[in-house]
């Protein structure tokens, strides 16, 4: 017994009447499910991997700049003494921001991390839709 959401895709209504037969009949519920989800979210889904909101774009930019900057800093600090605490801390910071950037990139593959925040706070500066 299969009840299909009617979203304009093929409705195999004969299945409903033949509820006794569960055999190997395929039920096609493909694109309709995705469309419904997007409709519910009330927003179009932008190309994956791209920042949708200004806030996310700013974070990406900030992390990228920090990686560059902190690598330069670490190289400078470690020139004197490679085993010093300052040297360790400097490279640890590089690791931290590199991982943070990688996490952000990964999250972006699914959706903009600010998606839910911006649904509730659409008027904030962070939530302006980012245009390249």
């Amino acid at each position, binding site marked *: 017994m299969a009840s299909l959401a009617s979203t304009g895709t093929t409705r195999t209504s004969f299945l409903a009447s033949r509820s006794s037969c569960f055999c190997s009949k395929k039920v096609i519920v493909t694109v309709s499910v995705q469309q419904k989800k997007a409709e519910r979210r009330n927003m179009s889904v932008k190309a994956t991997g791209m920042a949708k909101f200004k806030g996310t774009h700013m974070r990406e930019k900030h992390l990228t700049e920090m990686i*560059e900057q902190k690598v330069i800093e670490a190289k400078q600090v470690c020139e004197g003494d490679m085993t010093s605490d300052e040297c360790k801390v400097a*490279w640890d910071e590089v690791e931290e921001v590199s991982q943070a950037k990688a996490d952000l990139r990964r999250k972006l593959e699914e959706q903009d991390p600010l998606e*839910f925040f911006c649904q509730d706070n659409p008027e904030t500066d962070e939530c302006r839709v980012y245009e390249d």
Partner: protein
Amino acid sequence: MAICTVYTTQSLNSTCSIYTPSTTKTQLSFHQKQLVLFSSSKRSRSKRGGSNTCVITCAAGHSETVVIGLAADSGCGKSTFMRRLTSVFGGAAEPPKGGNPDSNTLISDTTTVICLDDFHSLDRTGRKEKGVTALDPRANNFDLMYEQVKALKEGVAVEKPIYNHVTGLLDPPELIKPPKILVIEGLHPMFDQRVRDLLDFSIYLDISNEVKFAWKIQRDMAERGHSLESIKASIEARKPDFDAYIDPQKQYADAVIEVLPTQLIPDDNEGKVLRVRLIMKEGVKFFSPVYLFDDGSTISWIPCGRKLTCSYPGIKFLYCPETYFGHEVSVLEMDGQFDRLDELIYVESHLSNISTKFYGEVTQQMLKHADFPGSNNGTGLFQTIVGLKIRDLFEQIIASKAVAPAQATKV
């Protein structure tokens, strides 16, 4: 519309579960007198002959959250493991909605994942001033970690701080409600003895230096600031603290996933083909190690042959009992990678004690996340299996508690 009303006439330090056939269990923790009004609307699409009954059961006694600890260095696959784990339990784990968008917490129906960086006592500036890395225990507040994990385990919500990785600052706290399964992941879940004792199960991801280097190259080479030298320098500078504070935790873990370069290809330094060892402690409550063919024996197995054709470099398994830091362990090792679906299902069908609920569940989970790193080798396979073992452990714990529910109030 059906309305069920529950009156509690005495203070119950109890758990109440509200269960309707069409929704998942909702669990509430009560610590004082509560009036519960529960209404359920009858769905228009009723199942054949089914009645919409709602059952409210209250059992006195604490609802203990099951706590899992996951330790690994930064950039070593904790996030991927978390995603596989939460997928096994069902539901997608997402950051808490409506809160701080830079929160590190993930919440799904059954599981809450907390990042232990949130218990940093020093923010980025503070650590720089003191000359202390994030790996150093001095940068972390273990008292708070213990207090809050203990509270959550006992069913009490907490206001947990947030460490913001973008700004490097400690943000205002967020409310964490006790979940069914709490996962604490980070650098130090097993460092403090008190926190260690709260864990029902613990895992350590032990990535060898060569593999770590290869993974970080993959992660960072696209970044403008990075080069091979900077990536290498970062790993080496952090190594002393890592060896002193993080690595020793592996002796306490119930399961260690060790990732090494392959032995199948001489001089392979790309780190693409991996040798992965799943080291499982013997004698852990509710956890029975996975084995090949004969529990406790030593087996060397190459599945590729007449029944299964594999492409280069193939797949090799090893299973044997060993001693690890003075403990009896069973080790299941996989070297090589899967190229085809039928290789995966063939391997799965020969493993025992994998706690699947149906034949092919491991394969199905791996396919579901075919885009995750490690989906074609032992890292994905063993992470998925550990996820299933944890699910099994969780269900056994719940079952053992259900055997003795103290006073149950009648509705």
